[in-house]
């Protein structure tokens, strides 16, 4: 634990919704619109937090626990992620497994909260979410295994601090494969376009949105904020792999990291602008493809 990591952690908690704003601005730019202001996601959160919540009589405490536990899990997961070139707030050997399963816990509670409503639509969304998650998780773990093998460490902070430009020179192909695989997972986990469309409100075609249809007010705010944090946490990992530049100076590292995150958000926005959402039957292929890339990278580093 050190003070600077804590500063980064707090800054991340505050700035996370901005990343969504950047993505939306990019999409608006591509569509020739002005787009919502950068801070719109934050305004939405404030608006939702000031509202009251309505709970259906058929739901139990599980429905109310869902958003809270999800948010707690992702805040916890964010403490494990190295931010701005600094080690994470917490780090120990094997924390990448904890990170993956905190994301799993978040997903689990979103899913059972959706099932608790008894709505057939939400059950459908839950089933899709779990199906795709089951395909995404092996890719995530194999990707992490590659990084662990490459850097002989099992801690996210150590792994990402060891990766440098020299590492890219030595085993560039493997790292590039992992980076692409993790970027695909980044899009899939955050319900971005090739997998899920965050803007659609047609229940039949969406995955994540359909699970949170019955949440309102503060609960919805927690869910949206949790999603923003998830975007930030996974984005930080991808950024650290793709942009392994460290100067050792606090502000310089912070600037590089922010530039990387904004770049990632812009790339995401561009991907969303130029691609259509995949048909649901094609999503498993994309995720399996990411898995195969990770496996190929593992084979490359294992030799």
């Amino acid at each position, binding site marked *: 634990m050190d003070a600077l990591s804590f500063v980064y952690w707090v800054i991340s908690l505050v700035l996370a919704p901005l990343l969504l704003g950047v993505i939306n601005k990019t999409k608006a730019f591509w569509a020739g619109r002005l787009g919502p202001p950068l801070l719109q996601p934050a305004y939405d959160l404030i608006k939702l937090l000031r509202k009251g919540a309505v709970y259906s009589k058929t739901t139990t405490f599980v429905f109310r626990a869902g958003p809270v536990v999800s948010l707690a899990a992702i805040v916890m997961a964010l403490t494990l992620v190295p931010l701005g070139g600094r080690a994470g707030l917490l780090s120990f050997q094997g924390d990448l497994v904890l990170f993956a399963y905190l994301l799993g816990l978040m997903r689990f509670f979103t899913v059972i909260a959706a099932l608790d409503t008894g709505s057939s639509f939400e059950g459908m969304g839950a089933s899709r979410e779990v199906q795709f998650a089951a395909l995404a998780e092996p890719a995530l773990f194999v990707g992490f295994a590659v990084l662990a093998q490459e850097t002989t460490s099992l801690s996210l902070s150590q792994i990402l601090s060891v990766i440098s430009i020299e590492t890219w020179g030595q085993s560039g192909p493997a790292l*590039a494969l992992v980076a692409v695989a993790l970027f695909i997972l980044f899009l899939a986990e955050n319900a971005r376009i090739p997998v899920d469309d965050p803007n659609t409100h047609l229940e039949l075609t969406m995955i994540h949105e359909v699970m949170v249809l019955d949440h309102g007010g503060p609960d919805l705010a927690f869910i949206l904020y949790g999603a923003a944090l998830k975007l930030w946490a996974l984005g930080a990992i991808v950024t650290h792999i793709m942009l392994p530049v460290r100067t050792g100076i606090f502000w310089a590292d912070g600037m590089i990291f922010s530039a990387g995150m904004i770049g990632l958000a812009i790339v995401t926005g561009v991907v969303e602008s130029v691609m259509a959402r995949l048909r649901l039957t094609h999503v*498993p*292929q994309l995720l*399996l493809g990411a898995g*195969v890339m990770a*496996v190929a990278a593992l*084979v490359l580093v294992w*030799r």
Partner: protein
Amino acid sequence: MTVGIETILVLLLMTNVALLGMSRLGACVLIVALQGVLLGVLTLLFHPGVHTLLVGLGSIALKGVAFPWLLGRALRQAEVRREVEPFVGYNLSIVIGAAIVALSFWIGSRLPVAFSVVSPFVVPTALCMLLTGFFLIVARKKALTQVLGYLVLENGVFSFGVAFAPEAPLVVELGVFLDLFVAVFVMGIAIFHISREFDHIDTEQLSMLRDWRQGGDQRD
């Protein structure tokens, strides 16, 4: 240099996997063309020299331009767009692709190679392409995809040969090119004829079906 070669080899591996997961035949043809170009560049990078220059440029011209053009033409004439109901589904194919990658690296690490290879990835990549080609031939129904499988198979043989290009005589390589060209040419014609026969029967039946229904409606 080595990084460049390894990048190309990894790209070749990825094209194999992409080929296993694709259903659109046009995209498949493009991927195989990309594979041919990559192989040509690989040859040029391996041993700069007149001999390899010929082989490399020949590979790019033939596999990157001539074959895709021939196959694309057959595709347009046959009016098939995608592989429908392959024997092995796409998701399973991708998983098998991952298994093929692992298997070929395992064999590649055990295979005693008599000559020094520039990169340790060459032999596994070649094996992977061989196996992917075999798998495509077995697992797909459309004649065109099977031709593509044959091409990928040959690409595997070629990339294996590239590893010791200076040792192999030029005549052998060119002979292989000629054989390949004739084979693809014949297959292209065969595809066209098969599909013409089948298309003919198919459309005839469909239009008769519609006419009969319309006639029935008018009578009522």
